[in-house]
């Protein structure tokens, strides 16, 4: 049956495994627009990436902040929405369809939408905020407001995903423990904390795992919303690598940065995988 796996294997080898090997090779070379010789320089590029203050002080904190904030908040919101939608009410199907919208729209479009809505002078939301009397915030020209906007966009995109999955998990839970709890006159909050959450735990962990890995490679939203600016202050890992390789045209350094990211992610992914396996076993 080896030949049946072959087509997929060949595509994977040619367009993932070989590129990664080539990238590793490139990361040991001084290969840029000003030096097309591709001389072998050993670990120099990695050292350069690891001693780059932009990478250490801005890119890494931003990437992990985005990961934690986006996954955390969208999990919380998704959980809240899922428990809200778990009851039956008129128009539930409509609300559920609408919740799907952000997931099916390209992040590029979402980011454009947000950029326009938060435009400093004409944006609907900025205008609305000043109308209500909120202090003026330069959404796209300061570090933290623009980064907050990036995180909000990410949350807007990913909350539905959590909602849909958690809703399915909620509807799959057995009704008996809840009935028993209601007979014992437990408060809704108590039921949620002591029953719903522990029973949803495996699903939540898997969701967080998948999303955390994906959040690390966020690119579209950041690139369209801020382009990494103002003054490189909202760059995340993917944007940093992209800028090195395709704007500064320093392929060697870009490949080294990409390699660093891959290593970090393999490590984080491995730890998360272990964690998931263990806690899912425990909850069984």
């Amino acid at each position, binding site marked *: 049956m*080896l030949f*049946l*796996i072959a*087509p*997929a*294997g060949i*595509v*994977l080898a*040619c*367009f*993932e495994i070989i*590129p*990664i*090997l*080539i*990238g590793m090779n490139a990361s040991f070379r001084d290969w840029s627009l000003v030096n097309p010789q591709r001389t072998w320089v050993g670990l120099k590029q990695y050292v350069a990436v690891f001693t780059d203050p932009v990478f250490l002080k801005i890119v890494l904190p931003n990437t992990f902040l985005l990961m934690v904030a986006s996954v955390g908040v969208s999990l919380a919101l998704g959980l809240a*929405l899922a428990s*809200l939608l778990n009851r039956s009410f008129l*128009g539930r199907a409509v*609300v559920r*369809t609408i*919740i*799907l919208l952000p*997931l*099916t*729209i*390209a*992040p*590029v*479009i979402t980011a*454009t*939408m947000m950029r*326009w809505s938060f435009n400093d*002078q*004409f944006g*609907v939301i900025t*205008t609305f905020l000043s109308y209500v009397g909120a202090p003026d915030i330069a959404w796209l020209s300061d570090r933290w407001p623009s980064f907050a906007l990036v995180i909000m966009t990410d949350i*807007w995109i990913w909350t*539905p995903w959590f909602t*849909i999955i958690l809703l399915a998990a909620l509807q799959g839970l057995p009704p008996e423990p809840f009935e028993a709890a209601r007979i014992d006159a437990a408060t809704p909050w108590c039921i949620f904390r002591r029953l719903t959450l522990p029973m949803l735990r495996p699903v939540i962990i898997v969701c967080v795992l998948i999303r955390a890995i994906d959040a*690390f*490679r966020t*690119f*579209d939203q950041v690139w*369209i919303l801020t382009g990494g600016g103002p003054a490189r202050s909202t760059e995340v*890992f*993917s944007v940093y*690598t*992209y800028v090195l*390789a395709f704007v500064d045209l320093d392929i060697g350094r870009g490949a080294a940065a*990409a*390699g660093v*990211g*891959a290593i970090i*992610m*393999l490590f*984080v*992914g*491995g730890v998360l*995988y272990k964690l998931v396996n263990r806690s899912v076993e425990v909850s069984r």
Partner: protein
Amino acid sequence: MIALALGSLRRAIFAISVAAIFVLFVGPIVILGVTSLRPASGVFYIWRGTNFTLNNFVEVLHQSQMLEAVWNSFVLSTLATILSLGITELSRFGGWIQRSWFATIYLFRTVPYISWVLPLYLVNTRLGIYDTYLGLLLPHIAVHVCFFSWLMKGFFDGINPSMEYAALIDGCTRWGAFCRVALPAAMPGIAALAILCWLSTWNEFLFVLILSGKRTPLITSTMAQFVTETGTEWNLMSATAVLAMMPALLVTSFGQKYVIRGLQM
């Protein structure tokens, strides 16, 4: 009396939160839609109504490579979906191969896209397929195959093998049993995957940004051109965004059931 008041209060809070969800998720899309219908001079009147026109759409469709980009994206997404499903389908067999296959796939899921799309650019230029559709299609297939092998395994495992055995006893070949029994049973799941695959190719940006050039305009790269150039023609950009959104919305509204199913896998 108090209980009644509490009940209606609770119902009011519930209704308000549902309405808030509605506004939160639809609001930005409505803003975009309204902007796309405003003439260039009317874009900045936010609260005041101006006349609405369809000129933006006309202009966008005439001006840039818009129609070409839409068509290209459509063909690319469809081809990527069909081909990667075809390949994944075949990869369901095997024992130890399968185990190492899944380990590999998990490994590759953790690697950030940028880490292999950058060397992929080098590969594509070396192979001479940079800025061609083949060069965009094959990497997409590689991504989807990774993702799908994992999920496919899930639903084929969920099918009771005794049905397949029954088919074998009744005189089907191994392949015939697969086609006639396992495949139809897995069909809803496959439909869900196909829709998700199509949407993700349609929405893909990083690959397009790096692997496509002037000869291969796609919908997301056309969008991005508006964004980076001047950033002032909001009406045209919104019109482009609305155009790019349409097929995705159509697919979602028709295949809602499958999209939800696919997300849950």
